[in-house]
Every structure is written in structure tokens, then in C-alpha cells.
């Protein structure tokens, strides 16, 4: 039977490598998918910028 410590180690070990791997995966995405992510980021940032008095335009990529 697996000991609790083993399960913990298995969960924690990949952590230091998680962020670089995630960034590498993002780098390799096709450009249209990256653009969809940029628009998702814009939708997150826009209300914050509007609260500061800025007027960001979220892209309409369906045109």
C-alpha cells in the first residue's frame, strides 16, 4: 500500500518544473489559439482598467 508520504512526494515533485513546462506549452500553441488567449486576458484586465478610468477595447476576433 502506498504511504501518505509517497503520495505527497508524487504530488509535490513536479512542482518546480510546472511553470516552465506550462510556459513552453503556451509558446508552442498555434497563433490563432494564442490570440484567443490574448482576448481572454483582455476580458480579465478590461474591468480593472475601466475602474482606473481607462477605456480598453476588447478585440472582436469573430469579425
Amino acid at each position, binding site marked *: 500500500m502506498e504511504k501518505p508520504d509517497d503520495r505527497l512526494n508524487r504530488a509535490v515533485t513536479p512542482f518546480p518544473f510546472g511553470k516552465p513546462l506550462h*510556459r513552453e506549452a503556451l509558446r508552442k500553441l498555434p497563433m490563432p489559439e*494564442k490570440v484567443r488567449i*490574448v482576448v481572454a*486576458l483582455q476580458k480579465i484586465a478590461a474591468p480593472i482598467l475601466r475602474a482606473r478610468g481607462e477605456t480598453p477595447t*476588447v*478585440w472582436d*476576433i469573430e*469579425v
Partner: protein
Amino acid sequence: MRATLHYLRQMHESGIIGGYAIGGAMAATFYIEPVTTFDLDVFVVLPQEADGLLLSLGPLYDYLRAAGFKEDKECVVIHGIPVQFLPAFNPLVEEALANAIETDYDGIKVPVFSPEHLTAIALQTGRGKDKARVQSFAESGVLCPEKLTGILTRHGLEGKWKSLTTD
């Protein structure tokens, strides 16, 4: 996005703009992970006016206005995307424009600044987000060391590169 890039291509082919290339955050996104940006930076070589050396974006904006596109602050919204046209304003950007890489976006040919030139421009500009972009490029493995060294040397940016990448 595709429609915007296609329209830029048409503007180039019909002589409204000369050489052009995508720069800034969207150009970086072609090579590294996506980052938040709200405009598409397009660096252009403007056609020379017959009677003088003064280059102006005025005729370009007049053309786009006549085509029905709306202005949005310093940008023009072309098919849903705010595009900022920027003339090549210094030797590094001129070199980046002359050496842009023809890239494919969903079947459209798009000239994009090289990752080495984008890194050098970010070093030269030096805002917080530019420094973050330099770090992303440095860690990405997409930079050609020889090409980057040549650009940094030509434009006096080796010191900035060292100080940013050895911290």
C-alpha cells in the same frame, strides 16, 4: 484577426503602405507565450511624398477613415482589432523592419519582427513590461545567440542585456 491581417496585406499590395511588419506584444506572441495587450502595433515604411522629406501618417488615416474604419485613441479599429501604425523611428526599428520574418497566420502571410530584434527593441525601450519580455525571450530558447549578439553590438545594447540577464 485574420481579416485584419488580410486587410494590412491588401494595403501593402495596393501601395497605401510600403514595407510593414508586426511589432510589440503581438509580434512577441508569435514566438513566446501570450501576454495582455490591447492593440496591434504595425510598423510601416510610409511612401515618400514627391515634394519633401516629411513623412506623415495623415494620408494613411485619411484612407482608413474613408474606408469606414473608426479611430480609437491612437489606433484605428480594423475588422475588430485596434491597430496602431508606427513609422520606423530609429535605426534599430528600421533594421527590424528590413529583416522582418514572413510568417503564416491562418493562411495569411504576415511580416513579423524577428525574436532577436524584438528582444533588442524591448531592451532599448526598457519599461517594466519590456524587461519582462526580454526575460521571456531569454528563457524561451527561440533566440539565435549569434544574431542577437550582432544586433546588440550594432545598437550599443550589450550592457543592458548583461545587466538584465545576469541579475
